[in-house]
C-alpha cells in the first residue's frame, strides 16, 4: 500500500500505465505498427493499384485509371508465361537439390560425426550465409566462366561446363540458399532420439531402410520449413540469372526491366511471384508443418 501511494505521487505516468494494459500495449505498438503498415503495407497496396494503371504512350508517364490490360499482358504473352514457368521450375529444382544434399549432410553431422567435427561443420555451413550475396554470385561466375576454375579443373577428364545457362543459375541459387535448408534439417535430425535407431535396427532394418522409414517422416516439417526459404528466395531472384545465366530470364529480370519503362506492367508481373509463394505456403500449411517452424 505504502509503495503504491509513493509511486502514485511521484510517478503519475508510470502508475497510470501500470494499471492500464491496453494503453501500454498501444504505446508499444503505435510506432512500429505505423512504420510497417504506413511504409510497407501501403507500398504493397500502392503497387497493386499501380498494376491497374497505364503508361501514357505520348508522355510515357504513368497515368491513373482502371484497366486489366497489364494483367492480361502478363497472363497471355507467351514470353511472360514461359518466364513464369521457367522461374517456377528453377525454384522447384533448387529446392529439390537442396533437400537431396541436406538430408545426408544432416544425418552425417547429427548421428555419425564426432562432436568437434559436428561443431566445425555447423560453423562451415553457417559462415557462407554471411559472406555476401553478391560476392557469392561473382564467385560462382568466376568458377563457371569460359576460362574459369571449373573448365580448368575438369579439362583432364575432358569435361567442359555448359557455360552461363539455366543449369548454372540453378547451381548458383543452390549455392546461395543451401544453408537455409541444411540448418533446419540438421537440427531436426539431431532431435530424433537415438533409441529409435536402436529399435529400428533391432527389428532388422538396415541403415537405408531406417533413413527412409524412420528419419525421413520425422524431418518432413523441417524440410518444408527450409523449402519455404529456398523456394521463395529462388523465385524472386534475378541477379543470379543476370550474372550466371547468360540470356536466361527469370520473373525478377522482367520486373526489373520494366520498373522504369513501364511501372504498371512491372507491378502486375510482381503479383506472379507473390501468387506462387502464397500457393506454396498454403500447400505447406496443409501438411501442418508451418506451425512448428
Amino acid at each position: 500500500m505504502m509503495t503504491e501511494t509513493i509511486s502514485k505521487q511521484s510517478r503519475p505516468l508510470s502508475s497510470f500505465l501500470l494499471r492500464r494494459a491496453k494503453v501500454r500495449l498501444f504505446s508499444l505498438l503505435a510506432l512500429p505498427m505505423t512504420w510497417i503498415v504506413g511504409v510497407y503495407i501501403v507500398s504493397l497496396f500502392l503497387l497493386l493499384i499501380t498494376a491497374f494503371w497505364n503508361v501514357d504512350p505520348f508522355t510515357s508517364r504513368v497515368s491513373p485509371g482502371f484497366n486489366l490490360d497489364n494483367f492480361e499482358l502478363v497472363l497471355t504473352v507467351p514470353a511472360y508465361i514461359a518466364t513464369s514457368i521457367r522461374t517456377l521450375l528453377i525454384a522447384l529444382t533448387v529446392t529439390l537439390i537442396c533437400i537431396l544434399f541436406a538430408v545426408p549432410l544432416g544425418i552425417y553431422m547429427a548421428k555419425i560425426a564426432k562432436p568437434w567435427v559436428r561443431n566445425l561443420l555447423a560453423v562451415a555451413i553457417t559462415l557462407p550465409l554471411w559472406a555476401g550475396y553478391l560476392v557469392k554470385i561473382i564467385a560462382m561466375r568466376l568458377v563457371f566462366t569460359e576460362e574459369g576454375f571449373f573448365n580448368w579443373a575438369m579439362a583432364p577428364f575432358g569435361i567442359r561446363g555448359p557455360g552461363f545457362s539455366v543449369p548454372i543459375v540453378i547451381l548458383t541459387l543452390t549455392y546461395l540458399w543451401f544453408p537455409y535448408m541444411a540448418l533446419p534439417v540438421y537440427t531436426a535430425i539431431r532431435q530424433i532420439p537415438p533409441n529409435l535407431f536402436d529399435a529400428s535396427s533391432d527389428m532388422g532394418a538396415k541403415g537405408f531402410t531406417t533413413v527412409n522409414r524412420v528419419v525421413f517422416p520425422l524431418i518432413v516439417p523441417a524440410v518444408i520449413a527450409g523449402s519455404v526459404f529456398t523456394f521463395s528466395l529462388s523465385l524472386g531472384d534475378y541477379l543470379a540469372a543476370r550474372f550466371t545465366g547468360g540470356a536466361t530470364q527469370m520473373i525478377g529480370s522482367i520486373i526489373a526491366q520494366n520498373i522504369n519503362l513501364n511501372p504498371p506492367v512491372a507491378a502486375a508481373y510482381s503479383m506472379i511471384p507473390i501468387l506462387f509463394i502464397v500457393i506454396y505456403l498454403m500447400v505447406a500449411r496443409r501438411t501442418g508443418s508451418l506451425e512448428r517452424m
Partner: protein
Amino acid sequence: MLRLSRLTRFILISIVGFILLFMYTPLFVLILNSFNESQISGWPIENFSTKWWIFAKDYQPIRDALLNSVLVASGAMVIASILGTLFAFAMKSFDFFGKSTVNILIVLPIALPGIVTGVAFSNTYSNFLSPAGINLGYFGMIVAHATFCIVMVFNNVFARLRRMNPSLQEASADLGAGLWQTFRLVTFPQFRTSFAAGALLAFALSFDEVVVTIFTAPPGIDTLPLWILKEVGRPNQASVVNVVATVVILLSLIPVYVSQRLARAQEEER
C-alpha cells in the same frame, strides 16, 4: 545409434566433402583472384600481385561507396533496433487480437522476394511521393533497409525476453521504480546482449543487401554492393572487384563473430 555399412558411411562422407568443396571453392577462387595481376579474372592465375589491393585502397569511388554502405546500415540499424525492440515487448507481454497477423507483418518484408519489396518502394517513391513533391532521396534507401531489418532485432530480443523472469520487473515496480527506471536499471541490462547481437545482424543484413538497394538508391549514389554490381556488368571485369568482394567477405565476418561472442556471453550471464 544409427548403424551404417562401411560403404554407406563412405558415401555419406563423400557427399559431405563434396558439399564443403562446393561451398568453399568459389570463395577461394574469388579471394585468390583478388591477387591476380591481370586485369581480367581467370584460372589458373599466372602472376600474383597485390597491385589491385593497393589500387583499391586509394580509389575514391570505393571509399565513397563504403561510406554510403556504413551510413545506410547504421541508419537502418538504429531505426530497426527501436522498432524491433518495441515489437518484441508488445509480443512478449500481451495476448491480443490479431497477434499472429502482427507476427506475419514483421516477417513479411524479408519473406517476400527482394524484388517485390524493392519495386513496391520504388513505385511509391517515384509514382506517388515524387509527383506530390516529396523526394526522400537518400533517406528513402534507409527507410527501405530499416523495414526488412526489423525482424533481425525482433527475433533476438523476443527470444531473450521470453526466457526472462517477469517477477524482477514486478519487484522493481513494488519498490517504487517508474516504468522507465525499471526498464533502464532492471530490464535493459538483462537483454542488452541480445539487443546488441540483433542490431549487429541488422547492420550486416543491410550492408549486404543489394536488390532492394538497386530500386531505392537515389541516382549517382552507390553502396558497396551497388558499386560491385556496376563493375561486374562492365566487359573487362577488373580484378579490383575481387578485392572489394574479398573485403566484403572479411567485413561480414566481423558482426557474425561478435554476435557469436555476445551469444556466448549471454549463456554465461544466466
